[in-house]
């Protein structure tokens, strides 16, 4: 007997993807998470472009997380040129990233994944959900405001450049946000409690490998070493070497895994990984709320990504308040430098996880080659593993429940399919 579960076009995710699962005689015979987002060939047309274009161009890979693309690329270029940035610039970049984490996570928690737990088709479909949606809107708005002040606009901001920023905001531009940020922070703590009280599917994966950056002093964003719960601990450059990207026939996104002996093992990046590997870096108040809410770390159920995201919204707000309170407008918006040739890899923590950029530049700073590995293409292999686990544990259940459950699992990764089209971007 054969049963096929098909989702042709996933809803409430960014980009275009679907899934096909075939069950034959009580066992899964085929499971494909497919991405049919059309390729955009970013890495190809970046070749021959001058280095400032990299920052503006790669932002266009994703309208939800353009800051992440700007952060990974600007740091990679600075590494090649040997440019150091000053403390206030470093802080401002972190603040800009906080803005993006807040808006991107709020979008996913309250508009994309949240409706799953209330069985509503969208965030505005049902009055019951409205108070939840309103909290999401307010959080998203404050995230966008941070990006707009530093970056000029919320989507595809324009201020990031090699050595710093084109212009830095005045102290008062930022402090005017403080009252709203404080209120949003209080709301975000309620958000953690709300998220941890949602009805989860109860599936846990026994052997997840979580991978994220780790920094000795802070929750990771722009800097750190690559670590995992299975002993990985290396410099950024090393990680891209132990990665294997591979193409599957049913998808325009390349998958990737960690090379181990003769096999390629799937791993997971993103909020769950970051939280599991870095929770001790969170401020005591947020750790307290995690404990009160009964959240067990490490998180092993990927549907609970919504909890990790909610925790990170609170953290990003906390961090934004801290940075703004300490902020003094720097004398210079950027440091001077001379372009030079070379190769470098840089990884930053995009809202969805590690975003890996590698560039080779010539002596004038023009692109000779590049490779971009977005978080979602790193997660694709793991999504399939997660789906397989879910289907095998529930194989006797009716198809519509399996279909719904599968959609929920995929959505809980916050896949950004327009990104994952990595190369197909």
């Amino acid at each position, binding site marked *: 007997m054969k049963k096929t579960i098909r989702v042709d076009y996933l809803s409430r995710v960014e980009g275009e993807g679907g899934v096909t699962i075939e069950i034959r005689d009580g066992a899964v015979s085929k499971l494909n998470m497919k991405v049919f987002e*059309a390729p955009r060939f970013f890495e190809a*047309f970046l070749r021959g472009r001058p280095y400032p274009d990299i920052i503006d161009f790669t932002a266009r890979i994703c309208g939800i997380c353009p800051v992440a693309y700007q952060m990974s690329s600007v740091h990679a270029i600075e590494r090649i040129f040997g440019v150091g940035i000053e403390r206030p610039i470093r802080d401002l970049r972190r603040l800009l990233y906080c803005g993006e984490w807040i808006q991107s996570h709020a979008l996913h928690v309250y508009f994309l994944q949240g409706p799953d737990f209330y069985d509503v088709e969208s965030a505005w479909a049902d009055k019951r959900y409205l108070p939840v949606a309103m909290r999401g809107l*307010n959080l998203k708005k404050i995230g966008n405001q941070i990006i707009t002040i530093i970056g000029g*606009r919320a989507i595809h901001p324009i201020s990031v450049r090699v050595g710093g920023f084109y212009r830095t905001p005045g102290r008062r531009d930022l402090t005017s946000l403080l009252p709203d940020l404080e209120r949003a922070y209080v709301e975000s703590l309620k958000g953690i409690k709300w998220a941890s009280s949602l009805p989860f599917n109860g599936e846990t994966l026994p052997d997840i490998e979580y991978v994220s950056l780790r920094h000795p002093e802070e929750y990771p964003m722009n800097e750190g070493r690559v670590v995992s719960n299975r002993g990985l601990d290396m410099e950024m450059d090393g990680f891209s070497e132990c990665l294997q990207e591979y193409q599957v026939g049913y998808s325009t996104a390349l998958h990737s895994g960690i090379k181990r002996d003769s096999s390629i093992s799937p791993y997971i990046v993103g909020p769950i990984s970051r939280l599991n590997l870095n929770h001790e870096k969170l401020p005591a108040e947020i750790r307290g709320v995690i404990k009160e809410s009964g959240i067990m770390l490490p998180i092993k159920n990927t549907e609970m990504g919504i909890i990790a995201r909610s925790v990170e919204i609170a953290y990003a707000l906390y961090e934004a308040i801290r940075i703004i309170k300490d902020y003094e407008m720097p004398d210079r918006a950027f440091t001077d430098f001379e372009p030079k040739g070379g190769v470098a890899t840089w990884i930053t923590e995009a809202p969805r996880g590690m975003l890996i950029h590698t560039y080779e530049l010539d002596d004038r700073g023009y692109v000779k080659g590049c490779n971009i590995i977005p978080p979602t293409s790193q997660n694709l292999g793991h999504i399939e593993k997660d789906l397989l686990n879910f289907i095998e544990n529930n194989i006797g259940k009716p198809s519509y429940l399996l279909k719904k459950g599968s959609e929920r699992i995929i959505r809980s990764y916050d896949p950004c399919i327009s990104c994952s089209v990595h190369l197909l971007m």
Partner: protein
Amino acid sequence: MKRPRIGIFKFTSCDGCQLSILNLEEEILDLIEVFDIAYFREASDRPLKAPFFIALVEGSITTDRQRREIVEVREMARYLITIGACATSGGIQALRNWASLTAYKNYIYPSPDAISALATSTPVSEHVYVDYELWGCPINREALLETLVSFLIGKRPTIPGYSLCMECKHRSIPCILVSTAEPCLGPITRAGCGAICISFGRPCYGCFGPKEDANIESLLRHFEALGLNQKDCLLLLDKMNSYAYRKAHIEQGRR
């Protein structure tokens, strides 16, 4: 009264212009009062069901499948409005229009033959009739609201077609092209962003595409006089609206 139905459709793009709809944080609830957001895959499970009063289309046409789908979208909608640089001018991915698709595929994919894509990325208007085009990478939220409201009440949206330079003048921002001699696309670019880049001290890089009757040749000659070589001048045009600038440049030569 039944609310007019809006459908939001995505082709090849970054999703940023759709996100602008969700970024109407304060107005989104009002928007839902007057419109029925009947199809919005990125934010809702509601299945596709025609007809629509307005189809908002994001993204350019880059595959065979999309070439068929855009015709279907046109048939379902009373008005079709494109949102953003991709749908309106082919987007950044239209840079492939001046290169070899095979070379691009070979550079990126281990098995290039498995990738199916058209050799070009083209604006929606090259495939079906478009009622209104919103420029920008990304679009401006206020312009989006103005457009939706205008179609609702049956008036022409008041969105200017003049150049970005007007916005600098309105905001009393000193001209970067004159004061620092940096190559700014402002004189040939549509207003719409509020002159964000120039207010941050960097030249315009053309998110909003060519303004009406842009004198591209004259600006390029000015850039050359500033010391840029011809190739670098073209690189300035070849960004998110490459296809539109190049077309406007060629048409200008014909006038």
